[in-house]
């Protein structure tokens, strides 16, 4: 029997961040409905703080959902988390920079600040009864010691899933295997893997990560996403469905790609 791996579809969040596309609420609701019917485990529906229209789209997706869990993406920022709670999603995903370049160069903060802030954000969401997953941004360039210590702190406050984001898309197959195996060995949390395709290895690295123990794999329709895109859902299913039960077939994915082609045509040529 094939082991189960769960697809987290981020077409409506990271996918939509592809320059050149701006989905309206109607498009978002339609895409989410089809992904839900397809059997996607979790749909990352968007970023509530982005605009009122974005928030409206997310709320409508939540009203219409059937089986999939609906998550929203939030910066590690108390106000953003509060805005996310207003949508009453199944999951709030809190993006947390973990590489030194992100912490010290972009945020101009330090590791203690990151730990304090993310724990505060988790606490606010959990107190409102919303489940939380935490995304380790730029994990592929981060200090594994910091990743493990942060994971330990998060586990203590009830976070059970951490997302390892290869934000700039530089993971190699060997590094992916090593990173996921380390996390599986040293944390008792479920690992979600979020790979970008900058070196043309998103599908292979996602597959290697799943083989190394990652339970959740992030994908997008047509592989859309920033720069060169994210792991392409169809391609991942094509590569992985003889090994893992993904809860959907390649034929079904092709069918919804066909139905949604017009919406994405401008950015997938």
């Amino acid at each position, binding site marked *: 029997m094939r082991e189960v791996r769960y697809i987290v579809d981020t077409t409506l969040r990271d996918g*939509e*961040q*592809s*320059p*050149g*596309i*701006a*989905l*309206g609420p109607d*498009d978002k609701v339609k895409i989410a409905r089809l992904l839900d019917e397809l059997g996607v485990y979790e749909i990352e529906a968007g970023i509530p703080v*982005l*605009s009122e*229209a974005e928030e409206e789209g997310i709320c409508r997706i939540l009203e219409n959902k059937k089986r999939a869990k609906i998550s929203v993406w939030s*910066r590690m920022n108390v106000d953003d988390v509060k805005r996310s709670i207003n949508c009453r999603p199944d999951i709030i995903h809190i993006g947390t920079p973990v590489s030194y*370049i*992100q912490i010290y*160069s*972009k945020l101009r903060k330090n590791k203690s600040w990151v730990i304090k802030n993310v724990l505060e954000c988790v606490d606010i969401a959990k107190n409102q009864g919303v489940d939380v997953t935490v995304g380790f941004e730029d994990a592929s360039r981060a200090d594994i010691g910091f990743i493990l210590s942060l994971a330990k702190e998060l586990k203590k406050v009830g976070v059970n899933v951490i997302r390892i984001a290869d*934000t*700039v*898309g*530089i993971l*190699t*197959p*060997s*590094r992916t295997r090593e990173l996921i195996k380390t996390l599986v060995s040293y944390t008792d949390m479920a690992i979600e893997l979020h790979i970008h*395709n*900058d*070196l*043309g*290895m998103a*599908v*292979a*690295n996602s*597959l*290697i990560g799943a*083989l190394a123990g990652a339970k959740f794999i992030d994908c997008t329709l047509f*592989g*859309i996403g*920033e*720069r*060169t*895109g994210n792991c*392409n859902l169809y*391609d991942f299913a*094509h*590569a992985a469905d*003889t*090994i893992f039960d993904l809860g959907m077939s390649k034929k079904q994915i092709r069918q919804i790609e066909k139905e949604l082609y017009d*919406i994405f045509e*401008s*950015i*997938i*040529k």
Partner: protein
Amino acid sequence: MLIIIDNTLTAIDHSLPSKEELHMFCQLLLTIGVDIIELSAAVYERMEYLPGKGKYYLNISSADAMTKRDLVNHPGFCGFVSRHAVSDERIIPEIQINDPREIMKLIQMRGCGELRIVGLDSLLHYSYDRIMRDIITMLPGSSIQFCPENHYNCASALAVLWLSEYGNKIISSFAGLKNNAATEEVIMTMRLSVRRKPNSNLTVMPQLSRLYEKFTGRTISCRKPILGKKIFQVEAGIHADGIMKNPATYEAYDPGWVGQKAELVIGKHSGTKAIRMKLSQMQLPMPDEDRIIMILKRVKSFSSAKKASLNDEEFVRIVRGVLADEGSKIHS
């Protein structure tokens, strides 16, 4: 030493370009860090002679036995490759293995000084670590060229795995033309991960892309890793801000390495910092914070209605509209 062999020029016999273009393509492949270029007999004939620089293989798979004997006597090539079994030690035999469970077939190749293994698309479905090690063990003393194929979109990763941990020679083609690893992806990955040839000049990628498109009649996708024309566009507020502070925050490598530059696109995902940056780039007047916020609101609304990002003209129109509205309020 890690060796990258590019076989793009064995796949264009149907539309042979000019001699000059072929020589230029070879020169550019060497410039980006390819070690050996493999040619078909037809391409070699069109080129008339081998360029002075670089190492070359001649693929003689399609030639008949008689012609093969003539071709292997050709000077200048450092190797000859053939798919068909030929009892000539000057020829590198190529063996296709589609299913990793068939690797036992390789035992018959024991004793070959050098050989090429093509296929193994589904290697990641199995214990790839053990299989790659078994291949090495099964062929002691042989120099193995690995040419993973791309049925599962994993060829570049397999080539990089082989170079990183097991062997030292892989076969690839530009943009993955031959359904194998993409040369540019392998080169960039090895440069970033183990600093292979850190001084090779990758800025010629756009020139290579243009020649490739002309030779093959194919258009390279604007999102194609390394080569795509839009891969350095950035719109999301959080990323535009990061790139503004330090480009390395959100880019795996400097776009200038591959002859491109980062481009700020304005749209639904932009933030106030991106608006300021765009105003500055376009040398437009910098309004106060309230007007920046107003511009941003109109940008988001326009972008959502258009269901796309804004072009520069649309952005300028919005900026002028906000500034004009505010001006008229002050004077009314």
